[in-house]
């Protein structure tokens, strides 16, 4: 009886491997390289708005996207020109204000990279990433 249950369990495990292996082969080129952002480092547009003026907005998108439009008062800080733009941002920073970094959309990686560098390299605290990025900001504005 016991041996039969074990056999059945092993059979189920083996069967579960079949679709798993198939998926791994089919999606071998679609590996997600983005590690999820901890919830404590993400803010929604609503949360961000509730913080009012106590926020420094950081636009991590490319120069041309920032020039086209951006969140009012946002400071441009992207990795294309990190060395040039960082001093300007650090001149505007103040420890009392929270930093919210955004890029184009949910799928972009620039905001999390910039946020990470501000935490690790500049050793700043209260650095957050805007959930959904610029796209979400626009949706909320409509």
């Amino acid at each position: 009886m016991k041996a039969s249950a074990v056999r059945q369990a092993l059979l189920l495990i083996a069967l579960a491997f079949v679709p798993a292996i198939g998926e791994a082969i089919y999606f071998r080129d679609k590996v997600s390289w983005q590690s999820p952002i901890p919830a404590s480092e993400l803010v929604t547009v609503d949360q961000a708005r509730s913080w009012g003026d106590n926020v420094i907005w950081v636009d991590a998108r490319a120069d041309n996207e920032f020039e086209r439009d951006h969140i009012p008062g946002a400071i441009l800080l992207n990795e294309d020109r990190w060395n040039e733009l960082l001093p300007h941002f650090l001149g505007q920073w103040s420890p009392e204000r929270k930093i919210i970094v955004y890029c184009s959309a949910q799928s972009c990686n620039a905001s999390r990279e910039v946020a990470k560098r501000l935490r690790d390299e500049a050793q700043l605290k209260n650095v957050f990433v805007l959930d959904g990025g610029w796209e979400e900001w626009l949706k909320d504005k409509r």
Partner: protein
Amino acid sequence: MNTNFSRLIGVFALAALVQSARAELKWEQTSVDLRPAFNDKQAVAHFKYENVGNTPVHFKSVHASCGCTTAQTQNEQVAPGQKGEITATFNIGGRTGTQVKTVTVQTDDPERSSIVLTLKAVITPLLEFQPTLVYWQNGEEPKPKIITAKANKDAAIKKLDVSSSTPDFTAKVDAGSAPNEFRISVQPRDTTKAVYATLTIKPDSPANTGNMFSAAARVMPSAPASKSTLSTIRHDLATPAATAASPSQ
């Protein structure tokens, strides 16, 4: 039974025939690992393919995952037996560490209409700083604070030149505790008024071709920063005043 088996074989044979008639791009590799040198501005990956099918394949779109990467095809159409490549050029800019960029290729191959090509570049910068900002609260004792600079070991950097954009700060460079490491000691002249300076750091190395790095030093305003207070912070980036050079290592 035998008839059924023969039918089954026939179905498989037909399926195999249909398979062999399709267009198919065979990629030499869909993932490329690059290790650009510290002075490189770009990392270029070549994704080679061949149409091993017997009908042409058309590229419908080639789309990079970020604005920092461009991708180009040699041809819009790939004839049977034809070889080619997609070139992905990643502009490094100020990026560091492991960077993974993807290029999504859409074709009219019904079996595999979309393929994701991956470019992975490990970027080791010429210099890394920690922290990139040193600051003093208003009225804090004006003791020096340290920025540690770690140089790429292949760059053979013997000396760093550090200059402050205002005379409100002095900077001095010493050898660090480890090889290829420097300690930049930054000190404000006084901490009773809000001041800001950009520290421009120039590595002195034969391998360095005019690279400059920045850090910042600040004395914070006395009250919580308001827009008007921030705007009064002196921000003179044009006139480097205090300059220091490190001893040779």
